[in-house]
């Protein structure tokens, strides 16, 4: 059966009603007022996305970190340099004593082979 035939069937068999559902008297007259009375004055605010850590906190943490690094470098670097300087000085001293063993430092560019041989045989 098609829709048209169904409608015709219903219309034929019973009184052709638009809608058998009734409402209380004045229902639609007061419906709008009742609905508007339930609505809040303003629309609910859209929930803001809140991060666990605020932007200000992140900035403060970054600033503190930078200050910490700078202060640490300022305090520790001289100490490190001093400790390494002594090591350097000692190395230089050892090198000095190694070099100061009584031999003259030859300037090989200034001497020829005969002179080198003479020095070697003399010592």
């Amino acid at each position, binding site marked *: *059966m*098609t*829709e048209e*035939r*169904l*409608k015709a*069937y*219903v219309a034929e*068999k*019973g*009184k052709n*009603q638009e*809608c*058998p*559902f*009734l*409402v*209380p008297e004045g*229902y*639609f007259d007061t*419906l*709008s007022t*009742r*609905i*508007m009375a*339930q*609505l809040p004055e*303003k*629309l*609910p605010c*859209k929930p803001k996305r809140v991060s666990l850590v605020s932007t200000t906190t992140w900035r403060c943490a970054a600033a503190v970190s930078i200050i910490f690094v700078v202060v640490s470098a300022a305090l520790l670097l001289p100490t490190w340099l001093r400790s390494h300087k002594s090591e350097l000085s000692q190395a230089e001293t050892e090198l000095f004593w190694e070099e100061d063993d009584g031999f003259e430092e030859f300037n090989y560019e200034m001497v020829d082979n005969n002179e080198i041989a003479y020095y070697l045989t003399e010592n």
Partner: protein
Amino acid sequence: MIGDEMQLIQQLRNEGTRRSAFAKLVSLHQQKLYYMVRRMVLVHEDADDVLQNTFIKAWQAIDNFRGDSSLATWLYRIAAHEALDHLERKRRSAAISIDENAEGGLLSLADQLASDTYFDGDAVQMQLQKAIAGLPDKQRLVFNLKYFDEMKYEQMSEVLGTSVGSLKASYHHAVQKISAFFHFND
């Protein structure tokens, strides 16, 4: 009509004119929406609850209305989902499973229509309502929208979020079932 709707949408978007515009929206669509809901839930008190919830939700979602569809389609969509949710909640609270829907639930309400003060149907209307009550909820919605509201399939597709082809098939099957119900009970 389109100009009036555009003007109403502008007023709804404006905080200063929103309430008056919404009151106008309610007045314009309350009857059609009420009967759409009433045909689904059958009982006046339930229809009243669902309709009020529909408009409250529409108010809360007014900022989300993008204008892709008409205001009527948008309201129908909210009302349809509210009606379906209401039926689902009622079914759960009555501890009636979906499979038993044909045997209880809305069918029992349809049986009570005869004693309902707010039902003025004759025996044929009663039979028709019983036949419709035997359909699955969404199919019943499709049938009601097409048969009683004479809604076009394209608009129905926007309301229900279902393709036109599926809606046509669903309606065709609904008509067949209701016709069979009448033949069986004739």
